[in-house]
């Protein structure tokens, strides 16, 4: 294997994938090293999936700057990369005078940040927008929206791959060494990758990688947020995300509509030191239900189809105060290394401007030749469920595999699952199929289709049952055969 690269990106979350795509505009050998078996298995895929407006961040911060910029470009990006995005707006709902004052401050801050479409609305307008909400008034952000974080990251990564970037999964970086010629040697359990540039886009692992680069002293804490997912039945009651009035550091438990009609409830914010534990305790589920019910009283246990959690890496100073993003090239300590620390919310929204900024910093130090064959357009898997009956019929006639429904809850067909199994990034976990097709995401949670997907993976890849993985390394699905 050729392990000599121009740029090595550590981390295939939304940031690493966006950077890979930005760099694939240039004539560079780019590789992405990811410790998990797929893109966006950590912070990027475990969040509210909201496209933020940019009003909630300190004026002048990178968070504000990138978020406002990203919000404006999201529509075009979604068209170019074919991922689901909806500019549905969102409301921050208040009741007290204090709330009103805070919302007015939020609007002022948003306007200073350059965010457009922010206004205070009264009860009547609020209930016109979201009839099922409880509250007296709200701040309405017209330009906020929702997206599919999996498909966004997959789209960025696939387009980068299409334009020549290489992705390596199950590669946990264990050490980084710089030789006398200023080349970096990045060690994984399997091999050593060597490169002129290294980019730390490791998300929750940003401090470790920063330390490996010799840039020490960062303090990164994890802020864990738990979520509950509600059945699609509830989707009709929530046309846009509903938030409480935010404090300076925490957006509060909110209810968010998803593009597929589900509702997510969360997150709480708990400081954690274990960045790999995603368990959701009962007490937190009770807290989420209780908090969010004050805004939107439709959360019933019978409608819960799943819970999940995510962890945000937050860079804090010695007092524990959360800092802005740190995106730096320390020419003194680690030349030709871009160090990204504390990329938390609104990182999902801001990924592409962050990536563009990273490339800008690199180009200040080195001229890159353009990749003349760069193609910005990426097409996703055509979904059966989204089409009209006439279109569905045409799809089946074009490819009969579209006539075999494998996931009955989400109406995912064999054709889509086959495309997901043979994805451009060559990822073969069960969740890879799940995130790319919505198969197993419905109310039966894979009770019906999981074994069909597993069997198709075996058949398509020619692998024994015991080699199929669910999500993370070691997540075997089956012990083997009953009869050999």
């Amino acid at each position, binding site marked *: 294997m050729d392990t000599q690269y121009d740029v090595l990106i550590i981390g295939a979350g939304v940031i690493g994938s966006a950077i890979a795509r930005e760099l694939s505009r240039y004539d560079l050998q780019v590789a992405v090293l990811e410790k998990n078996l797929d893109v966006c298995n950590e912070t990027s895929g475990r969040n509210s999936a909201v496209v933020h407006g940019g009003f909630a961040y300190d004026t002048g911060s990178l968070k504000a700057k990138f978020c406002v910029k990203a919000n404006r470009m999201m529509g075009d990006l979604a068209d170019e990369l074919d991922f689901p995005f909806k500019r549905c707006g969102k409301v921050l709902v208040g009741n007290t005078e204090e709330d009103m004052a805070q919302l007015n401050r939020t609007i002022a801050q948003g306007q200073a940040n350059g965010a457009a479409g922010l206004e205070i609305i009264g009860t009547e307008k609020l209930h016109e927008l979201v009839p099922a909400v409880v509250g007296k008034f709200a701040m309405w952000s017209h330009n906020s929206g929702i997206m599919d974080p999996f498909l966004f990251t997959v789209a960025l990564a696939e387009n980068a791959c299409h334009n020549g970037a290489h992705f390596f999964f199950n590669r946990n970086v264990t050490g980084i060494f710089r030789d006398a010629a200023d080349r970096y040697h990045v060690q994984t359990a399997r091999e050593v990758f060597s490169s002129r540039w290294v980019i730390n886009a490791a998300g929750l692992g940003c401090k470790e990688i920063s330390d490996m680069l010799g840039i020490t002293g960062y303090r990164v804490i994890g802020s864990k947020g738990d979520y509950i997912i509600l059945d699609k039945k509830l989707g009709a009651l929530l046309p846009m995300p509903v938030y409480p009035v935010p404090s300076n550091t925490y957006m509060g438990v909110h209810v968010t509509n998803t593009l597929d009609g589900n509702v997510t409830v969360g997150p709480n914010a708990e400081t954690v030191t274990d960045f790999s534990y995603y368990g959701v305790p009962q007490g937190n589920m009770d807290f989420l239900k209780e908090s969010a019910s004050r805004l939107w009283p439709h959360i019933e246990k019978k409608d819960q189809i799943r819970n999940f959690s995510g962890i945000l890496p937050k860079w804090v100073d010695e007092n524990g105060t959360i800092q802005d993003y740190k995106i730096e090239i320390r020419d003194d300590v680690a030349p030709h290394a871009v160090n990204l620390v504390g990329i938390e919310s609104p990182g999902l929204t801001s990924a592409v401007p962050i990536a563009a900024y990273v490339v800008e910093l690199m180009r200040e130090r080195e001229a890159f030749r353009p990749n003349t064959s760069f193609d910005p357009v990426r097409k996703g898997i055509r979904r059966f469920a989204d089409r009209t009956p006439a279109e569905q019929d045409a799809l089946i006639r074009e490819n009969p595999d579209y006539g075999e429904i494998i996931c009955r809850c989400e109406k995912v067909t064999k054709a889509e699952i086959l495309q997901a199994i043979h994805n451009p990034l060559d990822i073969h976990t069960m969740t890879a199929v799940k995130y790319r097709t919505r198969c197993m995401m419905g109310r039966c949670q894979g009770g019906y289709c999981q074994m069909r997907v597993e*069997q198709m993976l075996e058949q398509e890849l020619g692998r024994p049952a015991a080699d199929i993985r669910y999500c993370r390394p070691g997540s075997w699905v089956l012990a083997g055969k*009953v*009869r*050999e």
Partner: protein
Amino acid sequence: MMQTYTCIICPNGCELQVDMMKDRRTIKKIEGNLCPKGAEYARQEVQDPRRTIATSVLVQGGVLPLASVRLSKAVPKNQIFDVMGAIKKITLQAPVQAGSVILFNVLDSGSDVIVTRSVKAGGQNV
């Protein structure tokens, strides 16, 4: 002595009280059964508990990888895992016909192993 059994003959699952001698040979009284089959079961259960099992055998060249099988009649309870062992060794070639006996008098138990599901020859299509 008194002992309680749950009848497994039908879904009623009668709770059977059996009054018997310590040697478990002489049964004095059986109560709690809604039908005569319950008394019969209790007697059998006290003296010679038997069970039937259902499992599968490997099929080669069939539309399914397995054919389900059952026993023609119950075998002594303590023989169950030995009978399983004997069944596990069998491999059939498709087509397989439901009702066919694939092992006569398994382990001398007097019970036959019978296929309960036909498997046609062909590529696998579960």
